[in-house]
């Protein structure tokens, strides 16, 4: 049962061409190319600080690339009108690494907010939808709590529920199960699989959990220092011979790659304060 809004002429939801993103004059992503098809689950792997969150933030239009192209549902983000971007964003859900729940609202109000802002649904309908979403992430009964009253893992799940509230076509998850206990984390994996099945959602997940990654992924990419160094199906990734990738999958600690002189240089370099 594909979502009827499907863009008939293309099965490609997202494609990136030589995407470069910088914060100030520090480049974080150095030319990323990838493609995500409708209904596919893409898992983004990589060490921390490698640019995964930056990639997600750029995909949803929060960071402007310094060069390269982002195509979302056949539209170039660089030249899209504000109304078109809003239209795409209404069909998009994002759960932030930090949760980013609205601290001044209850969990229920957080989840219901996009519905209240964008639809003409009755309050009673919105309330039921909110409870359904919270139930799906295992937070049934917590709608009247404030984010500050929740544990880190619960916040994360509330953020997932909020990302789901508009039944999006594309879902972005930034480490949805980091810091959750294994049973709850498995519940999130299950939810991702069910969403894909029931709604044919396109899902992009950043995660560190290898077991989870192999369970949910159709495609994987591995980012290292702002460059995709490996991509493919889970099976292809398992067979990837690159040492960096092997290390990550085999959970080997980083070897001492730096040359002794570089290391000395680094330790003794004259300090320059970063200008803000």
């Amino acid at each position: 049962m594909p979502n009827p809004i499907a863009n008939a002429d293309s099965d490609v939801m997202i494609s990136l061409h030589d995407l470069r993103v910088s914060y100030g004059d520090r480049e974080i992503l150095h030319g990323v190319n990838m493609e995500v098809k409708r209904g596919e689950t893409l898992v983004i792997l990589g060490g921390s600080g490698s640019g995964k969150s930056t990639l997600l933030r750029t995909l949803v239009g929060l960071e402007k690339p310094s060069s390269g192209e982002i195509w979302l549902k056949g539209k170039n983000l660089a030249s899209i009108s504000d109304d078109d971007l809003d239209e795409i964003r209404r069909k998009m859900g994002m759960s932030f690494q930090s949760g980013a729940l609205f601290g001044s609202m209850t969990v229920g109000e957080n989840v219901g907010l996009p519905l209240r802002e964008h639809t003409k649904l009755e309050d009673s309908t919105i309330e039921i939808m909110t409870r359904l979403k919270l139930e799906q992430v295992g937070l049934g009964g917590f709608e009247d709590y404030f984010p500050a009253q929740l544990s880190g893992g619960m916040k994360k799940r509330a953020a997932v529920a909020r990302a789901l509230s508009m039944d999006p076509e594309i879902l972005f998850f930034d480490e949805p199960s980091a810091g959750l206990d294994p049973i709850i984390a498995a519940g999130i994996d299950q939810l991702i699989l069910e969403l894909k099945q029931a709604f044919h959602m396109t899902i992009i997940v950043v995660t560190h959990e290898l077991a989870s990654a192999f369970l949910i992924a159709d495609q994987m990419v591995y980012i290292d220092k702002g460059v995709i160094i490996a991509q493919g199906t889970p099976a292809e990734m398992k067979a990837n011979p690159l040492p960096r990738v092997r290390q990550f999958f085999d959970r080997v600690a980083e070897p001492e790659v730096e040359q002794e002189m570089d290391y000395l240089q680094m330790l003794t370099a004259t300090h320059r304060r970063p200008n803000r």
Partner: protein
Amino acid sequence: MKIVERFVGEATILDITGDIDLSSSPDLRKVLLRELKEKRTPRVIVNLIAVRYIDSSGVASLVEGLKASRDTGMRFALVGLSKGAREVLQLSRLIKIFEIHDNEEQALA
């Protein structure tokens, strides 16, 4: 989305065609609640066979219908769920809460 009303014996049957999504759910809700309030027949059957897509606002509207039927003491059933619709109800753990039949004959029996 279109809703057509039929009366078969003791039951009102609502034939729904098209997509039940954020924009059409309010209409579905209105029709359901009116039908359940007017109590023209002791049973209301929602026929979803021609529904291609139902999102969670549609599911929530059906839940409101079910609740209203309990309040007014009427029977409320769903028929003709597609595989997708079943999955959506399954996802919301509602599959056992609704009275669900494969087809109209069964629902009327």
